[in-house]
């Protein structure tokens, strides 16, 4: 196990982590501020990916696809909140779970009817199809470096926005104590709608970035949803900083675990057991991590509510 392979896998883990963060950021705010279990967040990833892939296919330009897909995804989140979500804030968690589960079914079928059940064709933009040598003899896909860059930029932007602007202050106040924030005269309805739309937008950006790498198909967001729920639980609900740190941890743990766990097991057990247990353990790793965190810190690592 050389240092180059470890470095390369660390980059992979980082890339997985920032993608997770883009999805988790919106989710942690929605859950923390509106106390709303939004299971259909994965559908937002799918919607963003489809907007981008469709526009890219129609125009032939990847960057145009992303540029136009961002406001479209923001708008879709805005409309969804106005039409459906705001009626569900007062319901208890289970009802929110079921209603948003219904939304998942609805969006998946809508996409399936509109674009067909087969995956859409999508590929890397020619300008980012090359490689960058992060170390001598270690070519790393330029596009994935780009994803890391965009993810970090978004994280920085959210951090600055939340900590340096007035709206950001309202968001922080809302995460800490929604009732008091409303009592202080903040237009909570519009604030919620904007937060929701922004969350949808970031999730959509994750989808847009993943589009060229993976299959753009109905239900593509669900695996990310589960993982990002794990992330925000570990990070602490309502905390964007917690989401970022937890996303990086989970991304690294999942990536490095998948790659190195079978090998590590082989040091202790015989080949057959290690080969059988390794992948199973690797898939469970993230859940075990979450369970352990919850047992010692029942409200996550950096909970927003003091």
């Amino acid at each position, binding site marked *: 196990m050389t240092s180059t392979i470890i470095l390369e896998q660390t980059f992979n883990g980082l890339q997985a982590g920032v993608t997770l963060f883009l999805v988790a950021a919106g989710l942690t705010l929605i859950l923390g501020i509106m106390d709303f279990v939004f299971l259909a967040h994965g559908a937002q990833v799918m919607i963003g990916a489809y907007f981008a892939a469709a526009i890219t296919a129609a125009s032939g330009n990847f960057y145009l696809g992303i540029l136009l897909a961002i406001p479209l995804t923001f708008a879709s989140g805005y409309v969804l909140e106005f039409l459906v979500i705001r009626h569900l804030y007062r319901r208890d968690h289970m009802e929110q779970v079921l209603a948003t589960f219904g939304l998942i079914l609805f969006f998946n079928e809508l996409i399936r009817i509109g674009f067909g059940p087969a995956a859409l064709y999508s590929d890397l933009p020619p300008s980012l199809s090359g490689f960058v040598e992060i170390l001598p003899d270690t070519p790393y896909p330029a596009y994935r470096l780009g994803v890391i860059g965009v993810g970090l930029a978004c994280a920085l932007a959210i951090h600055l926005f939340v900590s340096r602007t007035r709206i950001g202050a309202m968001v922080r106040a809302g995460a800490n104590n929604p009732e008091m924030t409303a009592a202080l005269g903040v237009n909570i309805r519009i604030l919620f709608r904007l937060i929701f739309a922004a969350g949808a937008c970031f999730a959509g950006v994750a989808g847009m970035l993943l589009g060229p790498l*993976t299959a753009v198909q109905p239900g593509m967001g669900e695996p990310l949803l589960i993982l990002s729920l794990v992330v925000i639980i570990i990070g602490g609900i309502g905390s964007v900083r917690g989401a970022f740190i937890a996303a990086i941890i989970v991304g690294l743990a999942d990536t490095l675990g998948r790659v190195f766990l079978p090998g590590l097991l082989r040091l202790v057990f015989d080949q057959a057991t290690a080969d059988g247990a390794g992948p199973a353990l690797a898939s469970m790793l993230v859940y075990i991590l979450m369970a352990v965190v919850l047992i010692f810190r029942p409200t996550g690592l950096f909970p927003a509510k003091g």
Partner: protein
Amino acid sequence: MLEINWGVKMKKIMVAAVVLAAIGVGVYLLINEQKKEVVRVGYMTTLSGGAGIIGKQMQNAVQLALEHKGGRLGGMEAEVIFVDDQRKPDVATQLANRLVKSDRVDVVAGIIWSNVLMAVIKPITRSDTLLIGSNAGPSPIAGEQCHENFFSMSWQNDQTPEAMGKHMQDAGVKSVYLMAPNYQAGKDMLSGFKRYFKGEIAGEVYTKLGQSDFQAELSSLRAAAPETTMVFQPGGMGINFVKQWKQSGLDQVSKLYQVFSVDAVSLPALKDAALGILGTQSWSPDLDNDINRKFVADYKTKHGNYPSFYAAQAYDTILAIDHAIATSGSKDTDQMRAVLAKGNIPTTRGLLKMNSNHFPVQNFYLRDTVKDADGVVTTKVLSTVFADHADSYAANCKF
């Protein structure tokens, strides 16, 4: 006053009784309406949900076959009832019961997934109805748990990777890096491969089922720098894997072989990214016989893209039912079984032979991924790896 109340209540009871009676009569009529001399086929696939595209192709193929046969199977008027198992074994069990007990079908056919097949085979075969599989071929059904009422028109799961193993062994490949998802089919594929490939296994990696990002595994692969790589990543996983393989420039490092990862379902999403990847399969759109040529041409005209092997097998299933009824002269289960067991069924793969465990004995071909005359990416046969290959479990099957 008492009279008025009694009257109202009596009316309500009468209305309820009439409604119930009407329902009862209607149901009775519905059941009995179906007693004409018609061949009824219950076709089970997954039409909704993520894998619905596969079921859709199979449904298209079945309908095309019926068209080609003028709506008659073996000379009798045919009716196909499509049911959607939603990829859930318990839904499938209920549907199987319905097809057999309520719709009283003469044959049940289809079934994409191994776990669904394992769930429904008992209720169906127990009712003395034939079950003709269009895709799934788990080893228990080919071996110890075989049943004489089951026929496969596809293959046994291990055969396709066995062919790949043989090809790579014969081609002098020294070492191979294996990758498959961590589930039963994945493990079966790799063990089938290793049955015939005797070279060095440079790595055997099991990925997460449903995984969409393989960058981590591909980085490890690059570090291992194996001579060749053989993968089994069906469905969306295949699309993701092949895309990321090409994007990582791994063609420079290792030669990629695949089973069930590149086919007419995934090619429209991959396009040029899949060019040059070799694989093995028992069918290809360019197989040269009349039935196949007509099937592929008409499918392309009607649906705008190449049919996949799922579609070809579904098409063959209908041909098999037609052959069984035409040759035996009846839709009686015992007579159809006797005909099918003899084999020599005209299909898109030529005259298909049957093994003693009711799985086909057929050729397996090496296929390349190329562009056709219209620039559409498809697969093409390069050579025959196995001629008349039988599966490895037939000896364990005793009816």
